């Protein structure tokens, strides 16, 4: 029953993406507290860090020396891993170079207004006092472009408070929302068209969907009777796998609750067993 209610809520959220009419997912007022600019964009790094490195021999003539060697090794390992990750990220970020002007012109408040209209939420600009009651959403989004430029991914941490100055949030979670894979022959031309209108619209849609999922998730426990399963989904032209609880939301999409309790909104792979629904278009 809870799952059904959740599905209806998410469906309303999904419909709001294509409809100019705002779909409120809660009877409480929602306020989006806009984060500070800029809007961060990164590239999805496909190559994950691997267990590698040369064999290490440390002199350990005494237990103290051994302990020191162990700590040194830990620091060295962590530093190597981070430097490798930074190098991979810097290399991957080159895919964003053609979009530099569009990304630089993107404003958090514009995305929030567009997402807020679709969500039926009001927007409080950075530093603006909030006087209304309801659900106050603080969020920190980062957008990612896949290496093949066929999908935009939003990773956003969201915390919800019922009063503007509450120190502890009522609810906090991380949402990862993946756009439908782009079928266009030239994805770069698609995103760049019209001064990046598609890119802006997709970013706002993902933000709206992610915030709608949070609002729905915090209002019950729709996952209680759902078993974990292995789900295959699309991230641009790549297929990804996640072990998660799974609620199909139509249009070949699903909401997942990962093993860490985070939410994901993903387009399903055709190989996700038996849960494929027909496309919307």
């Amino acid at each position, binding site marked *: 029953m809870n799952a059904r209610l959740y599905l209806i809520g998410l469906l309303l959220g999904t419909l709001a993406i294509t409809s100019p009419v705002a779909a409120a997912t809660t009877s409480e007022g929602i306020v989006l507290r806009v984060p500070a600019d800029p809007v961060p964009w990164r590239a999805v790094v496909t190559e*994950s860090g691997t*267990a590698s*490195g040369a064999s290490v021999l440390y002199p350990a003539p005494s237990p103290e020396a051994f302990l020191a060697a162990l700590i040194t090794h830990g620091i060295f*390992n962590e530093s190597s891993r981070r430097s490798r990750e930074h190098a991979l990220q810097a290399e991957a970020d080159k895919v964003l170079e053609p979009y530099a002007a569009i990304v630089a012109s993107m404003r958090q408040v514009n995305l929030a207004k567009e997402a807020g209209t679709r969500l039926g939420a009001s927007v409080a600009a950075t530093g603006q006092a909030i006087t209304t009651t309801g659900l106050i959403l603080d969020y920190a989004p980062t957008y990612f472009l896949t290496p093949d430029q066929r999908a935009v991914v939003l990773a956003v941490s969201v915390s919800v408070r019922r009063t503007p100055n509450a120190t502890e949030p009522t609810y906090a979670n991380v949402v990862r929302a993946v756009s439908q894979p782009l079928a266009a022959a030239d994805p770069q031309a698609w995103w760049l068209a019209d001064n990046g209108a598609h890119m802006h619209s997709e970013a706002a849609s993902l933000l709206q969907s992610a915030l709608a999922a949070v609002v729905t998730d915090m209002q019950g426990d729709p996952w209680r009777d759902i078993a974990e399963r292995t789900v295959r989904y699309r991230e641009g032209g790549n297929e990804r796998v996640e072990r998660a609880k799974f609620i199909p939301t139509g249009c070949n999409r699903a909401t997942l609750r*990962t093993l860490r309790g985070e939410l994901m909104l993903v387009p399903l792979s055709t190989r996700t067993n038996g849960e494929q629904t027909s496309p919307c278009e």
Partner: protein
Amino acid sequence: MPTRLTHKLLFLLHALGLALLTGCASFVQGPVALDQQALTTTPGKIGVVMAPLPVPSVAIEGAGCVLCYLFAKNALSELNEHAGSLPVDDLLSLKAEVVDALRARGLDAEPIDEVIDFTTFPDVEERQPDHTSKDLRALRSKYGIERLLIISVHRLGFHRLYSSYFPRGNPRGELAGSGEMIELSTGRFEWLEPVYAARDVAGEWDEPPSFPGLTNAYYQAMEAGRDAFLNVFSAPNQAAPVSSR
């Protein structure tokens, strides 16, 4: 429903049998790429058997002295305990999926549900390269098959590299196995390759007691391993992805 101990014994029995099929240390049998021609001519019926799955565990590699190994084992004991509690159910359908993939290519394939104890078969008189060390011809009449395809998963769970006492990276989700197809009348391997898949954890790995990030990597590796087995038979001219590492 076999108990965990029975399961382990069945796995060990099968592993021993497979070791005997590929030979002992004095005879090194290298990998054999899938003979696509064998599948495009008239191969007769192919029996598909799957070895009992291992209980998931943590594999420690590179801790090259007894103390180093004990040190690493102790450091990973909680993860090992968690690994043992993970289900392997997702792989149980692999045999049927391989049969389906073969049938989709127009081949006659049947699953064999029995566990075959290869140790009971007689040795061949003279071991030839790319041939089994056992005479398996009796299986032709027993199951009415010309070829035997064996899917084996030797290791499942997590893997961490060490250099003596020191870890050389985070643990990863891992599946290590092998695939074999044997032409039973001659004992020739028409396919003998390792299948390996490993996946890194996204973010922090050390999250006891449920290790959600690593557990996800475990399932990702399992799916990658499944794909590696299936891809061998899904496209005639496609090279087998023996490793996704």
